[in-house]
């Protein structure tokens, strides 16, 4: 019995140890990846055509989903906000509530989650496919650094695209909240906007929301591209990498959002 307990404990500790080592190794590999990309980033700023194409893929193609989701999220906020605030006889505050929740949290976070699903997965699949069809090797053989030509423009494009998408998401959401609260539930039009602009601060709220979006963009792009770049070059490997990319990116966005919120809005 004692021997069994001893054996199980040892196995548990060994398991914990190997899991920790594995996690550290994974972290180290990602850090090396980032380290290798950084010197390539300034170079890709000047490749306007390349950058333009990537912003198109990451940003423009994500536009429909961002517009639709933003509108619905805003409408739901308007509806729920109105229900709750009516109990306190202050349904005029529904504008403030909608705007603040969108600008501070839902805008950057939901846009980032949609971006991870729409653009992040596409980045992983694309780079994974480039690896499995030897295009990355071919670039190296042509003495072209894949970091400069493939990875860096995509990171930069994400950093440009996601904050834009988050802003569009916020604006659409507020419009959705307006339609429901003012157009449908009869909240006073003037009070809706007046209270909102009174309470929403440009620096504390809007700029912080934008900073969040930039941080999320960097994280999503690095996770997605790392998974693609390091994927097992088979169709199965690429599909696993794509799933992992979306799951990891979403979890990281939610976790980092908590940290950022606690730092920004004290």
């Amino acid at each position, binding site marked *: 019995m004692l021997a069994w307990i001893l054996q199980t404990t040892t196995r548990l500790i060994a398991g914990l140890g190997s899991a920790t080592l594995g996690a550290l190794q994974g972290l180290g590999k990602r850090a090396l990846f980032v380290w290798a990309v950084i010197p390539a980033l300034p170079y890709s700023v000047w490749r306007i055509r390349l950058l333009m*194409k990537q912003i198109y893929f990451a940003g423009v193609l994500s536009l429909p989903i961002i517009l639709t989701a933003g509108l619905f999220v805003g409408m739901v906020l308007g509806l729920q906000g109105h229900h709750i605030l009516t109990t306190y006889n202050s349904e005029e505050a529904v504008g403030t509530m909608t705007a603040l929740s969108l600008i501070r949290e839902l805008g950057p976070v939901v846009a980032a989650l949609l971006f991870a699903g729409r653009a992040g997965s596409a980045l992983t699949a694309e780079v994974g496919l480039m690896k499995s*069809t030897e295009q990355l090797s*071919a670039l*190296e*053989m042509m003495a*072209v650094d894949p970091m400069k030509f493939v990875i860096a423009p995509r990171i930069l494009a994400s950093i440009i695209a996601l904050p834009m998408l988050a802003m569009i998401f916020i604006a659409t959401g507020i419009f959705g909240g307006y339609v429901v609260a003012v157009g449908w539930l009869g909240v006073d039009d003037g009070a809706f906007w007046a209270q909102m602009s009174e309470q929403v601060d440009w620096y504390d709220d809007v700029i912080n929301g934008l900073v969040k979006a930039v941080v999320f963009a960097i994280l999503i792009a690095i996770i997605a591209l790392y998974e693609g770049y390091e994927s097992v070059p088979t169709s199965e490997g690429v599909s696993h990498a794509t799933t992992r990319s979306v799951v990891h990116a979403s979890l990281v966005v939610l976790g980092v959002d908590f940290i950022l919120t606690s730092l920004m809005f004290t």
Partner: protein
Amino acid sequence: MQNAPLIEIENLSFYRADRKIFDKLSLQIPRGQITAIMGPSGTGKTTLLKLIVGQLKPSSGRVLINGQDVNQLSRNALYELRQQMGMLFQTGALLTDLNVFDNIAFPLREHFKLPEPLIANLVRMKLEAVGLRGAYALMPAELSGGMARRVALARAFVLDPQMLFYDEPFVGQDPITMGVLVSLIQKLNASLNLTSIIVSHDVNEVLSIAEFACVLSEGRIVEQGTPQELQQSESDYVQQFLKGLPDGPVPLHYPVEPWSVG
């Protein structure tokens, strides 16, 4: 210098996980000739190519190109050296979002600031050489396998390299395409004064153009020499491989426990 081998491989060992791929392999690849590296699937022929061009690092041993140790080179020096190399990949590895013309122009545009008309001329010359000048506007997805490989070949020598590496150029091609590729490789080598290294298991095609050939097995070179010398090799293994016999030193059956009933 003219007679010194272009590529020297010295005591090269390579492990993947714990599996030994190469064990103290040594080989000298002569300058200005077509060299064939042959062996059955799974002997690590492609891995050997990647070791030669410095995409993989050996566990021990050296690879010298023109007397330079590939693995001691800085990143920039290695990229400098790679401009002297062209490689034809198994899948062609054309960049999928560029058309044929831009794919071939790609190395030129990346490395040299040339006026667009000059690039257009160079690209058209290379396309003419592989017989695809009319296909310049097609996207890689619109090309047949054989055409894609010819476009990739045009791209591989667009920088006028010293060496051309072919990774299984004949796999999965119909006999006509194979014939086209064989004569292309031969013509290119002769007219551009190249050193060509072909990795393949298509014995007949390769031996018809190679001037020097070697056979790989279990991480070592089992035989090397001119094609004639190989044909007369006394090694059973080489004979089995060259003649494509189903059974011999390489057994038909995967290692298995003796079958016993009960």
